[in-house]
């Protein structure tokens, strides 16, 4: 099994070093090789299991409850501005 490691890293939002890419490519290949033994199991008529609890329809009534304070909510953000969490600009000029 050959993995497109760069593509997967991009999907995973991980910045890998060239060395990590090499190591992971090899190690993931080995793991995938190992898990390929599942091919031996005949699952033609088997439904995937879904939730093992067998529970259904678990939800909540529509009732609002107090929220966190602004300080508790975002006090640990790397950057804060006027009660907003701030990150480096992600828009291009066209969105202005």
């Amino acid at each position, binding site marked *: 099994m050959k993995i497109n490691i760069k593509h997967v890293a991009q999907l995973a*939002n991980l910045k890998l070093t060239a060395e990590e890419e090499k190591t992971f490519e090899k190690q*993931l290949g080995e*793991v995938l090789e190992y*898990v390929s033994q*599942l091919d031996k*199991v005949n*699952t033609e008529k088997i439904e*995937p299991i879904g939730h093992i*609890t067998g529970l259904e329809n678990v939800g909540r009534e529509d009732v609002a409850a107090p929220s966190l304070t602004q300080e508790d909510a975002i006090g*640990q953000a790397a950057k804060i501005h006027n009660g907003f969490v701030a990150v480096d600009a992600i828009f291009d000029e066209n969105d202005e």
Partner: protein
Amino acid sequence: MMDITDLTIKDASSLLTSKEVKAEELAKAFLERTISLNKKLNSFITVTEDEALEQARKVDELIADKQPLSPLAGIPIGLKDLFSTKGTKTTAASKVLENYIPPYDATVVTKLRDANAVFIGKTNLDAFAHGSSGENSDFGHTRNPYDLERVPGGSSSGSATSVAASQVLAATATDTGGSIRLPASFCNLVGIKPTYGRVSRYGIIAMASSLDAIGHLTKTVYDNALMLNVTAGKDEMDATTSPNKPDDYVSEIEKGVDGVKIGLPKEYFKDLKGDVKDLIMKAVKKLESLGAKVEEISLPNTEYGIATYYIIQPSEVSSNLARYDGIRFGNRRTSFGAEAKRRIMLGTFTLSSGYYDAYYLKAMKVRRLMREDFTKSFHEVDVIIAPTSPTPPFKIGEKMSDPLSMYLSDIFTPTINLAGVPSLNVPCGFLDGLPMGMQIIGPDFSEKLLYQVGHAYEQETKWYEKKPKID
């Protein structure tokens, strides 16, 4: 004062209620031991001394006030550092969260607070619970108190070591593929992986959501049942918790095993090393002598356990770890350790377009077969006994260079998570001075029965009396 290394929760609780010992004294004694041993063992990431003393003093007030108290009141416990604690750093043993302070408590933490347990601190683990040895912690590995050169097992490494070394009387833990039972086996402890959905996961940093079970480690079966009495139950914040009312796990714990049918799954024993097998068979014989009936059974899909697990688990991990982006809290994704990155990469791949059916979907089908293996077996037998680990604790560093061999060290535990059923690790002796455990597995919500079986065996053997020599 007494030797605290001899204490169990049961003993300590009666000392407190009979006013022979004050909760504050007890807390101080355990804190002192925790702090003095931590350099050697590295079982704690954070020690919460002030909070512990405050909680203890409150218990003393309640006792003076003759208030009714939980058996956990004043009991020093450790919390695996995956359990969110309001106002106390919760790191998951990862650099990503090295300064993260949750603004809320996990439900289990709230329940333990309400029971007036005393929090000694947050215990070490494999970062994000990824590991079987404790070596994947970003804050250094934890040592096994029975042999400092060996691993305590993981991922609940610090929880196991802290209880075995009597730094606390119990510690919370999580078990996604064996992370409670394996360290329990390696550290001569009782560890419960409850039925999936028996204990709330809310507020506990998720590893693989469909597999994570929340349990704890103690020295004795009785203590373990006391803890589950507090933590089990429906939580409105966790939609996967069972609405069934939990049993009282303690009240009939001495019922014995007369007539209990024990199944021995042949797949778990066929390649087992002679001495390990002998140890477990000796334990089974003991239970037989107490009135249990033993028969061989088959769980035919066992061999696919690890493969299935290493598809489902990393897939869910990759999604659960997506929130760590360094924006609202914590550090950036570059701070993930190698194991987290490896699992994120693996899981991202197995869920990706064109591969989902071949991996995740296929695994979820095989998972159904595995659960069916167990449900079928439980028509024939009441409980299943199997080894927890194929070997005693291994040496630190022994398996770090080869992830696959590390994954394969955990062959007997993940299948039980895939099936969702409960399993209790109970110590069953020593090999060359190193602890070994066995797991007692039951049908959904049979924790009460598991404790009865475990307790019956433990009363005959009392392996917990064999303390590590670390002082």
